[in-house]
Structure formats: C-alpha cells, structure tokens
C-alpha cells in the first residue's frame, strides 16, 4: 500500500469516492435539467472535482466554507447529502435551502457551509467577516472561501484581501481558475494571467497548484490552512482547473476549441487519480467498480428523493423573510 501525505488506503479511496460522487451528481443533474426537473441557472462542477475534494480533505469539520454559484461540489465535499442538494435543485421543501435558493444558494450552518453566493466575489467579504468572528472569539477555525478567476477582477476582492491581511484573519482564499468568466478567457480579462500574482502586493503567501490533481491541491491547501490557522493571516491558493461543460446549462459552449477540451479531458482528475491508485497498488479495479456502483445508487436515490419530495406550500411564500422575534 502506498501512503502519501500520511494517507491510509481508506483515505485514498474516500478522496476517489467523493470526486466520483460529485461527477456523478453533476452528470445526473445535467440529465435532470434536460428532463425539465431542474431549471434556472445551474453551473456544473464536472472537471473541477479535485479542487473541492482536495481542499476539503485537509480542513476540519468545524472550519467554515464559503462558496460561489458553482457550488454543488463544495457543498457535497463539506458533507451535504446528495438528497438535500438534489432536492434543492428540484426546488423542493426538503432541499438544503427549503427550495428558496436553488443551485446557486445552498446553505447549511450545521456543516459550517456558509452559503453559495451568486454575485461574482460577493461571498469574499462575507468570508472575511466570518474569519473576523473566529478571531473575535479566539477560535482556532479557519475559513476557506472558493471563487473563480473572474472574482479577482472585482474591487471587493481587493478590499477583502487587504482587510484580511491588515487584521491577520484566518482566511484561505482558493481561486478556482478554470480560465473562463462565462465565455471570456482569463487572458482577455486579467492583466496578469497567473492569478496568484494578483495578491503579491498584499504580502501574503500565494501559490499555484495543479487543480486537476487532488494530491497537489491537498498539499497546497494543507500548507495554506496551517499558516492561516497558526496566526499567519490569509493565504491564497490558485488551482488551475477546467470545467468540462459550459458556464451553465444554458451555455452552448462555442468559445472553446475541441482541441482545448480534449487536452483537458485527457487530464481528467478522476481518471488520473484512479489510474494512480491502481498503478500504485492502493486499490484494484474491482474495488473502484464497487465504489462506482455505490455512488450511482446514492445519486439515483437522491433523484428519487427529490422527485417524491413535496413542493413548498404557497402559503409559505413569505416565511423566513424576517426573523421571528424581529423588533
């Protein structure tokens, strides 16, 4: 058995399982979208699984996570059940946000999954505020915030990094650079293409990792989390990754060449990791096939659950807008 970064065989298989769960969930979501069971803006994470799974594997359950609108993977990797997420995509009352949020607005405070925000960079200052609360209480948690390459061009991104450094907040900034803000390549949007360099002026630790390699993400985020947890202030990890599908389900994806897609598909984080596991003797194909069957059954069960779940009653339209006990 090969052990990397102190991982047991079971831990290796858990990484594989989680990535496969996200991939299966996302491809099933696409099918359900095509059937009309899911509507609205739905941004799939297929291709980027190594980032969420790698990052989440080196932070603890009590650490906070803030995400963007491409968030199914983050929520699942943080522990949300496929049932709760799929039911939300179906708009059902059993969904993780009771059908009020949809694909872009998942939230579960018990999992410390502090929300998906659908304004580019909108979750960034919120993540700093959560980190501020941790520090206020002398806690030892960190906050991991996920955002895309487009977010670094928003003013509030720079406001947030400045404040996080100024106040030495335990914040790990994880930039998922999938090279496209909808249809605009990063080279046409950012004056500097290596996005980790965009925070150099703040004098924080910033690294670039291969976002298609779950072990590389683990290594980068593990180090960043250790620094931020240890009082070293914010850290920045740029994970270069790729989405295998369009920006959202309504994107015909006509701006990327077949050649480019093939190059990245050949670097599929799942096949890369499963080959690695088999080649190194960590798992045999039979074990991986068994995991695949389990994951497929779990996602099928989530769809079944979502289909059978009730719609939120119309009488509850206004519920939750203002808190109980509001002045």
């Amino acid at each position, binding site marked *: 058995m090969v052990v990397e970064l102190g991982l047991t065989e079971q831990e290796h298989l858990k990484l594989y399982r989680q990535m496969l769960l996200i991939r299966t969930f996302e491809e099933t979501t696409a099918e359900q979208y095509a059937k009309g069971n899911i509507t609205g803006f739905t941004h799939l994470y297929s291709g980027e699984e190594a980032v969420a799974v790698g990052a989440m594997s080196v932070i603890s359950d009590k650490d*906070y996570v*803030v995400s963007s609108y491409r968030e199914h993977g983050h929520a699942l990797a943080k522990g949300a059940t496929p049932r709760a997420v799929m039911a939300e995509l179906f708009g059902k009352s059993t*969904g*993780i*946000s*009771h*059908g*009020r*949020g949809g694909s872009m*607005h998942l*939230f*579960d*405070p018990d999992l410390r999954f*502090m*929300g998906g*925000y659908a*304004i580019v960079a*909108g979750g*960034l*200052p*919120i*993540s*700093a*505020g*959560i*980190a*501020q*609360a*941790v520090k*206020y209480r002398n806690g030892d948690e960190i906050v991991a915030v996920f955002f895309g390459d487009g977010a670094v061009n928003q*003013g*509030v991104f720079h*406001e*947030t990094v*400045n*404040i996080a450094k*100024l106040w030495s907040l335990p914040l790990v900034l994880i930039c998922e650079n999938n090279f496209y803000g909808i249809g605009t390549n990063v080279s046409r949007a950012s004056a500097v293409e290596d996005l980790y360099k965009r925070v150099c002026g703040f004098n924080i630790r910033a690294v670039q990792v291969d976002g298609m390699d779950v072990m590389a993400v683990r290594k980068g985020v593990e180090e960043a989390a250790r620094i931020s947890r240890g009082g070293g202030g914010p850290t920045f990890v740029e994970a270069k990754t790729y989405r295998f599908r369009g920006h959202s389900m309504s994107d015909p994806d006509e701006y990327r060449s077949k050649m480019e897609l093939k190059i990245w598909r050949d670097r599929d984080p799942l096949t890369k990791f499963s080959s690695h596991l088999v080649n190194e003797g960590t798992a045999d194909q039979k074990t991986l096939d068994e995991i695949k069957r389990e994951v497929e059954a779990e996602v099928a069960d989530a769809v079944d659950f979502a289909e059978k779940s009730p719609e939120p009653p119309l009488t509850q339209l206004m*519920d*939750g*807008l*203002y*808190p*109980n*006990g*509001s*002045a």
Partner: protein
Amino acid sequence: MAEIRYREALNQALREEMARDDRVFVMGEDVAFFGGSFKVTEGLLAEFTERRVIDTPISEAAIVGCGIGAALAGLRPVVELMTVNFALLAMDQIVNHAAKIRYMFGGKAKVPLVIRCPGGGGHQLGAQHSQSLEAYFLHCPGLRVAVPATPADAKGLLKSAIRDEGPVMFIEHEGLYGLKGEVPDGSDYLVPFGQAAVTRTGKDVSLIGYSRGAMLAAQAAEELAQKGVDAEVIDLRTLNPLDMDTIIGSVKKTSRAVVVYEAWKTGGAGAEISARIAESAFDHLDAPVARVAGGDVPAPYNKHLEAASLPQVEDIISAVDQIVGV
C-alpha cells in the same frame, strides 16, 4: 429622564448594548481613534478596546460584507458607514446579500447586523454628500429601515435594532445630531419597530413625517394652530415596518393628509405612503394626499439654492392651506 443630544443618545445606546452583550461590536471608518465623523462613537474605544471598536479602511463593500459574515457567524456587528451616500458603494452587499441571505437560505440563516449611517442635507455639502436615500432600502424586502427624529427614539430604536435578529438600515440625520431632548433613563429603554408616534393630536389634517421631516411637521403644526388649524402629527420612526394602522387611523379622523420627507419627491418613501393611504382610506379623504418633499434635483452647494431644494415649514403650511377647507 435626562435631556441629552441625539448623538449622545446614540452613543448611550451603543455603550449600553456593548456592555450588555459581548457579541456586539462596532466597526467603520474613523469610529475608533477619531471617535466617529459625527462623534457618535466617541469614548467607546477607551471603554471597549480595539477588539470591539474597530477602524476600517475606506472599503464600504468590505465593511458591510464583513459585518454580514460576522453576523452569520454569531456576532452582532454595528457597522457605521460614514454617510448614507457611501452606502451606494456597498449596495451589492446590502441588497444582494444582507437582505437576501435569510430568505434565500430557507430561513436557516441569521444576519443580526445594524448598518448605521447619517443622511440628509442642509449643510451645503453639495450633491454627493447631502442625499436622503432611505427609499432605496425601503424598496428592498428583507431590510428594516429606522429613521429616528428625536434623541429618545435615536436611543430606543438603535437598541431595538441591535437586538433585532435581522439586518437593519439605521439612518440618522446629520442635521439632528445636536438636537436636545428628554431621553428616558434605564438601560432597558427600547422603542419597538413599526410603532409610529403621534406627537400631536389634531382633527383637521394629518401631517406624516419621519426623521427631520417629522420635526418640520411638528413646527408647522404649531404655526397652523395659531391660524386655527388643528393638525395631527405622526412621526413614523421606522419605514420598514411601516405603521399603517396609525396612519390610516389618523387619516380616517382628519380626512386630509400631508406627507413630509426630505428625499427627492419622485419615488420617495412619501410616494409609497401616499399610495397606501389612497388604497386603504380613499373613501375617507376629503382632498388629495399632498406631498411636501425635496426637489428632484442634486443638492446644490449655494445656501439659498439648497434651501429651495429642501422642504421648509412654510411649504407644509402652504400645502395644508390648499387642502383644508376643500
């Protein structure tokens, strides 16, 4: 009952709530070492240290965003935006985030956040520093909007805002900070949201205002009394919740209403109030609802032009003259 200024009343509210609850903290531009641009936070740093009285960079979106995050994580931040004009830089955080989070996350999130900001004109500060923007926030479901006119309400409403479980836009008036008034003693003095104050009872016309508009209405009522017109004056105190019961009850009695507000007339809070009166009390009205409001123009610097752009007591009297006796 002590007589103190509006700014002192706000300061007391902050001090009492911070003493009462360690989760309450203050942050904003120049709130700590400088003591606040309008001295509302003066002395708090010495009493509560930098842990709880925090100067920020000039980054309004991040200030509000941090407040939201801290609130989500269980604290009760009171953030100060130096003026409501600068709230526009934080509109995404206020409207897209603070106001939405609880609802869009299925009621599972709590954002007990107070956003304090001075607003209003009258100090020759020009177009970018003299605005009354409460209607922007009133328009957005999910935000409470408090607009105190007196020292007592400033204190009681701010304490209620801090204890509220949701986001509150707390808009103070720059022209009222020096106003003196009686403020009840006791650290549990609260003014509940959604309860307008009838500050003068009368039978001939209802003058409905908030913030400085309520003060103008009260002054106009005194002058109208000399002319034999008995005006009722309502200070709304909060715009969300809006105390329509008190407004409609008064209009049913007087059959005439004048809404007084300093903001631009078009699309202002007074437009909403007028529409609701028309919807709910049309049969009781003896005259159209009148609005005495700010002119639809950026605030000019020149003293006389600025005065002409703001509602004045005589404007209210003249509006009443036109509808009383109709």
